[in-house]
């Protein structure tokens, strides 16, 4: 894999020259259809790095934990936007992060793949837009395009928006309407929307995988952990769960890059982008802002315009 070879080569060079302390990338997972984040500090270990359709995590979340170190990070389009936005929010110094940008054709949803084939997958092989999955006595060939994560299907930034090194040829950007589902939902009657909302968050365990997977949940004290004042309880009361998700999404207004890491981390398969996508659409339409594209633009809720739309009577 060309891209993989380039990532490894660059990582080796950066570590040997001590340009960085650590390279954050992906390595082979312990299950088929999975890669796992890797933290490489030794230039002799760069062959652990891989690149495939299962590099689903947003590695930018780890930048919050490695402040002060010089870090190289393997970044897809969405991840690179996270890096820009974290620098705008002054959580990282741009000069401390070396972005190994990787043009991305989207990551594959392992849960949907498993559901579609019906058997336990023991090995998977990708080539030329196809995925061949096998169990002990069964095999199926799938079309990659049918199993992209929802966030990848509506992605308009497959190529990294910033990079210090580009590990591959740029890919064609899609002209997809990323807010098509939001628009469709907006046209439904209110009661139907309320029922969907209630049902969507019914299975939430309050495990906070969504929070921890997101690069922008870096608050030292999350509002759910506050006891003075105690905003919501920690149990499973439906209104507490609903408010947890409403407020979490709201806290990401103008900060979410729609990488989908929250949705992929959730063990219960909750449609977490349902709320954040609405906020992304409103932020774009009301304030002309898209997260992580322009390092010189302030996030929308840190600023204002005299011409802002006015709902106040």
């Amino acid at each position, binding site marked *: 894999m060309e891209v993989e070879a380039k990532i490894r080569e660059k990582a080796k060079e950066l570590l040997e020259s001590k340009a960085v302390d650590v390279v954050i990338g992906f390595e082979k997972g*312990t299950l088929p259809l999975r890669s796992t984040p890797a933290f490489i500090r030794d230039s002799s270990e760069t062959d652990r790095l891989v690149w495939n359709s299962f590099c689903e995590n947003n590695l930018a979340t780890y930048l919050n934990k490695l402040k002060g170190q010089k870090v190289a990070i393997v970044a897809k389009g969405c991840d690179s936007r996270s890096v820009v936005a974290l620098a705008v929010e002054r959580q990282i110094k741009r000069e401390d992060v070396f972005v190994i940008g990787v043009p991305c054709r989207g990551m594959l949803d392992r849960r949907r793949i498993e559901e579609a084939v019906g058997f336990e997958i023991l090995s998977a092989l990708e080539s030329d837009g196809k995925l061949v999955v096998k169990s002990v006595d069964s095999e199926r060939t799938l079309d990659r395009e049918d199993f992209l994560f929802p966030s990848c299907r509506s992605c308009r930034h497959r190529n990294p928006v910033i990079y210090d090194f580009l590990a591959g040829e740029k890919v064609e950007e899609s002209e997809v309407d990323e807010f098509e589902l939001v628009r469709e939902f907006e046209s439904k009657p209110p009661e139907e929307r309320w029922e969907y909302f209630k049902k969507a968050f019914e299975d939430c365990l309050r495990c906070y995988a969504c929070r921890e997977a997101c690069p922008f949940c870096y608050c030292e004290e999350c509002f759910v952990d506050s006891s003075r004042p105690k905003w919501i309880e920690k149990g*499973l009361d439906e209104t507490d769960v609903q408010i947890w998700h409403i407020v979490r999404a709201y806290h990401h207004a103008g900060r979410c890059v729609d990488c989908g890491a929250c949705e992929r981390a959730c063990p219960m*398969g909750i449609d977490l982008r349902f709320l954040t996508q609405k906020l992304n659409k409103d932020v774009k339409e009301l304030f002309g802002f898209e997260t992580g594209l322009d390092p010189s633009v302030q996030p929308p809720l840190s600023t204002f315009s005299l011409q802002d739309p006015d709902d106040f009577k």
Partner: protein
Amino acid sequence: MKKIIEKAKFADFVGTLLSDYEVFAPVKNENGLVLFSRISSPEEIFLDFRNSKKPPKEFLFPQVETLFEYEPGKVKVPSVEAIAQRRLFLCVRPCDVKSFLILDEVFDTEEFQDVYYVTRRRNTTILAMGCVDPPSTCFCTTFDEMGPFSREGADAFLVDIGDRFLIETLTERGESLPLESLPDASDEDVQTAEDVEKKAVEKVDRKLELSKLGEKLDGMFESPFWDALHEKCLTCGVCTYLCPTCHCFDISDEALDSKGRRVRNWDSCMFPLFTLQASGHNPRPTSKERMRQRIMHKFNYFYKNYGVYACVGCGRCVENCPVNLDIRKVLEGILSL
């Protein structure tokens, strides 16, 4: 005794159970998740599953439990009768059954019995079901006397032998299940069941050799091993909440002025608040200390205190960890040091 239930007659059998017990069985919910849930009709049961997303521990140790309610001058404790109904856990996997025995070590001891847990536990009959086709994430055979057909802790046991189930009673409670009208299992049935069992046990071959584990862990508190291990951990609570043996909890008062209730909620050693002290100091500030604690607790301290590992090899943490931090790989790493 060993009896046969034709699969075509299984719904009838469940019907008779429903008239005698509150039945908790695997169900596929509207969002496609297989979860244990209280059923009101046999049609709700879903048996084409490897294991449920959430472990059934929540029916003995609920995620949210009201300990008591209070207002000025009055305290109202939930009545024991309210949680003492006859219950049946149906088609629970052997790993989850074993987890109840592990939870017993914590909540049902000689010196102390947690009334909320113990009342439920003592009123629950367990009809377990063997795993005919264990997934590759399972490693139950690692633990003493455990396996996809381990009967430990069950009152009765179901084996799927094709168009029928073999049901075997194991305890007095098991004997009291409504089985009189069922035909006895033939020698052939028994043999088929044994063959199915043998195949399943062979399949769970990711068996770790744990005899030296305690010794290794004892010397490892300051080891650099933890430095490499922890970095990708997100410190979310997925592994702890989906683990059948994790049992940490937080007690919280939900109150409005002077009226309220005290609740017990599940808590996770991975959460930032778990060891946060009032001074602001946190002895486990990062994922390193928390991962170390998780491994030490489950595989060293718990074993030393109770003689059993706080892990049943169900593989839920392996399957669901958002960053594929695989506990089997961690243990293999420790054992190879």
